[in-house]
């Protein structure tokens, strides 16, 4: 007999259960509720504990190798960090890298899980039905994330010690400053996210417009004073800068006036406390008696558009009714004309592809219509931010890049900005494509189950996969347009190169999108996405983006050359500096293989997933 049948007699003769004493239970919840919630969150984090540990170990190593040693070679003689109290470039950036990685983690931990709690999985509404107060639910999450920060920072610090990037034992204290920095940047974001009723790309906007700029203009890789004055202001407001500076004081005793140190501490504490209180308040509004349902971003624009459509549709209906036969106004007899033939392909692959990619693409456009302006803006801004930060911030430390050294003909030196610009375009194409094909696809796959709906119509898996990839390309094309425009205006490339680079950006995005989608189809949980990020980060750091790979020994070079981003970066540089060789064809070939293999695997997986 099956086991899930209702049992007849509940066991009544049990000894008094701990649940019987309601008074004590309520009291316990009142006192320790936040801890219970924190425990729950930590338990769910344990599921991806390996990822956290692994990233805590690998991130410092990667940054040390890439920025400390790689970029350090370029900075080398030019920079002197003794005046800051550090004996090497690596030592100078170490505390800041710790603070920055904590801030990045904050950008994840205080956004997605909160949205998950309120909307995607409605976990908070489950907790709401228990004696926990909304404030305790909020604080529980914050506490759990703080624990995660602490573990990450501790491991990170140990690795830095091992590499000799920290010398003073007092450096341990930078764990505290990094955690405080993480809370100061994360809690305001959590407060904001918890007001949202719906996610319409806000998570990615937060990454692109808040975390990224703050990270880039916080004097992580160079002293803030390297930047022009108006950009320094951005740093002053950034909690990451304060955490960076505090960490430097603690790690190697960077000379700072006492008032400034006090200011760092007070600034970070102030934001943390204020944002914590605000978060608790918002949680109380949403989960308390008030039952506020949150703000719907873009609701007004949406309503306006819907009204417009309604008017248009009504007109359409009138017209088609007028054109058709005059039917009786009986609602049950079809007022519309007979069903048009439903088109689908027969023959080869008919089980996979019904020839209706357009519908999938159209659905995507309808869904993103409200964010139009924002997409343009974000595409324009992100690479520009990178260019400004590294171009302006690091240039003073680097004279220029030797053309010979980076394998470009013609000789002479190239300005650092011109050197990194094509690479940043490739990176931006990669990031956009990956974001669209992983996070977005994962949601539609697992959370909103949109693909399941699509697959109950005459669409086949190929229609869905290709439609999604087209959407990723559409956005990628727009992102690239903005950046290339800036490069063109800045005189870093000429018009013909601009056109070619735009096409290349799409080509590169297609490669990453098809592989990204294939990989996503294997994911079962959010947190596995972190593994993906762990592959992307080193790729960004090492693939000749910020410094030529000739700084590395041959073996490492060969490894980097096997990675896709390196090929994209080189391809972009070949076009930007108009310097083609047989290697150019290799780069193109690499992407063709990636596209074909990615699409094939995606299709196979889609079929597997939906025809279980």
């Amino acid at each position: 007999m099956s086991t899930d049948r209702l049992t007849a007699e509940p066991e009544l003769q049990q000894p008094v259960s701990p649940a019987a004493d309601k008074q004590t239970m309520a009291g316990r919840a009142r006192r320790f509720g936040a801890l219970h919630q924190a425990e729950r969150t930590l338990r769910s984090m344990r599921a991806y504990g390996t990822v956290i540990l692994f990233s805590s170990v690998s991130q410092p190593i990667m940054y040390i190798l890439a920025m400390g040693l790689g970029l350090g070679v370029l900075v080398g003689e030019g920079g002197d960090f003794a005046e800051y109290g550090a004996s090497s470039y690596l030592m100078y950036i170490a505390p800041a890298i710790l603070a920055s990685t904590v801030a990045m983690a904050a950008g994840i931990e205080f956004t997605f899980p909160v949205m998950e709690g309120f909307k995607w999985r409605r976990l908070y509404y489950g907790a709401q039905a228990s004696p926990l107060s909304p404030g305790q639910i909020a604080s529980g999450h914050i506490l759990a994330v703080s624990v995660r920060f602490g573990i990450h920072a501790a491991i990170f610090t140990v690795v830095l010690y091992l590499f000799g990037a920290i010398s003073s034992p007092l450096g341990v204290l930078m764990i505290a400053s990094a955690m405080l920095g993480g809370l100061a940047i994360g809690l305001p974001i959590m407060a904001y996210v918890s007001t949202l009723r719906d996610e319409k790309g806000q998570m990615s906007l937060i990454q692109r417009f808040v975390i990224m700029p703050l990270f880039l203009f916080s004097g992580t890789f160079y002293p803030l004073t390297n930047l022009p004055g108006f950009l320094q202001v951005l740093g002053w407001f950034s909690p990451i800068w304060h955490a960076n500076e505090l960490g430097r004081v603690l790690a190697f005793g960077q000379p700072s006036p006492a008032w400034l140190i006090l200011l760092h501490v007070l600034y970070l504490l102030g934001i943390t406390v204020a944002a914590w209180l605000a978060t608790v308040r918002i949680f109380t509004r949403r989960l308390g008696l008030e039952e506020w349902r949150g703000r719907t971003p873009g609701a007004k624009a949406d309503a306006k558009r819907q009204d417009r459509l309604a008017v248009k549709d009504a007109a359409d209906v009138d017209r088609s009714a007028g054109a058709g036969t005059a039917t009786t106004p009986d609602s049950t007899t079809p007022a519309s004309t007979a069903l048009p033939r439903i088109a689908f392909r027969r023959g080869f692959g008919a089980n996979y592809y019904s020839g209706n990619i357009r519908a999938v693409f159209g659905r995507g456009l309808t869904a993103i219509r409200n964010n139009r302006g924002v997409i343009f803006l974000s595409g324009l801004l992100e690479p520009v931010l990178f260019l400004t930060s590294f171009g302006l911030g690091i240039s003073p430390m680097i004279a220029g890049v030797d053309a010979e050294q980076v394998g470009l003909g013609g000789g002479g030196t190239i300005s650092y900005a011109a050197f990194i610009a094509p690479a940043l375009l490739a990176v931006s194409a990669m990031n956009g494509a990956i974001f669209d094909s992983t996070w977005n696809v994962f949601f539609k796959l697992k959370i909103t189950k949109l693909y399941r709906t699509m697959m109950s119509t005459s669409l086949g898996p190929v229609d869905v996969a290709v439609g999604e990839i087209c959407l990723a390309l559409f956005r990628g094309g727009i992102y690239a347009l903005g950046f290339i425009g800036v490069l063109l205006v800045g005189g870093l490339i000429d018009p013909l190169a601009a056109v070619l680079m735009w096409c290349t950006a799409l080509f590169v995005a297609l490669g990453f999108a098809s592989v990204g989608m294939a990989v996503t189809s294997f994911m079962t949980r959010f947190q596995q996405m972190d593994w993906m990020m762990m592959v992307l980060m080193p790729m960004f750091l090492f693939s000749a983006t910020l410094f030529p790979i000739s700084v590395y020994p041959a073996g490492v070079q060969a490894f980097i050359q096997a990675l896709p981003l390196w090929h994209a970066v080189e391809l972009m540089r070949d076009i930007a500096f108009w310097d083609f060789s047989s290697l150019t064809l290799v780069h193109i070939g690499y992407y063709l293989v990636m596209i074909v293999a990615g699409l094939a695997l995606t299709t196979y997986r889609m079929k597997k997933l939906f025809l279980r």
Partner: protein
Amino acid sequence: MPVEHAIRATGLTKRYGDFTAVDGIDFTVNRGESFGLLGPNGAGKSTTMRMIAAVASRSAGTMSVAGLDPEQNGPEVRARLGVIPQQDNLDEELSVRENIIMYGRYFGLPRRWLNAKTEELLEFAQLSHKATARVEDLSGGMKRRLTIARALVNEPEILLLDEPTTGLDPQARHILWDRLFRLRESGTTLVLTTHHMDEAEQLCERLIVVDEGRIMAEGSPAGLIRDHSTREVLELRFGMDRNQEQAQQLTALLSSGAASADGAAAEGRATGDGGVGVGGGGGVGFSHVEVLPDRLLVYAGSAESALEQIHAAGLRPMTSLVRRSSLEDVFLRLTGRTLVD
């Protein structure tokens, strides 16, 4: 290729790992018929539906839907189907109207035609006033109605309804029943699962009862009642914990009576996991007693006379109710919902 049957499955099996959800079932659904799948939770109904809808693969067996194999011709089969899944899977990023339009677009239908069709479907689902609302703002029943309306956008030949009326208010339920009648009249084949036995009696011409992936019985609702139950049922409550012992007593009491002339009564069924007693009769046409957690069901040709006998024997149930036998009784009997053994 005109095929007689809409769906034909033989030896249909679905395994998840070493768990068998559907265990070699055979059934045929004729064109224009309305066909029901009944069974307790976890019986394998939804799994069967998903295999018909070409969104789940078979582990064994054959299946033809409108003369095509759903595994080989997924898109073409699905183009002929309307699917109402057990759980609403509406697109929360689109408005109510856009949900229907986009769904139609997935079938490759032209937008102009869809605009008119959508208004019609919105009216049918009584959602015209919510056309521009966000899906999230709809009530549970409204979402259900939208899911149903959406499934009709391609004017399907075969409509698969997995517990369609769950969460609907009585009015909406009757409107849906009416609509389904009309669809059937116009030649649409209906396949539905439900836990409401009245719904199955109303809507299904023929049904199968499945349990643990196997077919327990097949037939028309009236036929099933005739074959697997008595004409009437007497519901008795004796209060907690006393049902079991009372059942023994009642069985003894009622089957000791004179042999019945009532043909509808006991036809010597082996008590699988079912009733306590089999047999004899009395003037009441007694068949057996079913023990439910909260009450006893006495199956008899004449429940009224059974009750008289019980009173005469000095038993005093807290409440008693005489009613006609229904599909629910068949269901309880066949799927062993009793708690004996």
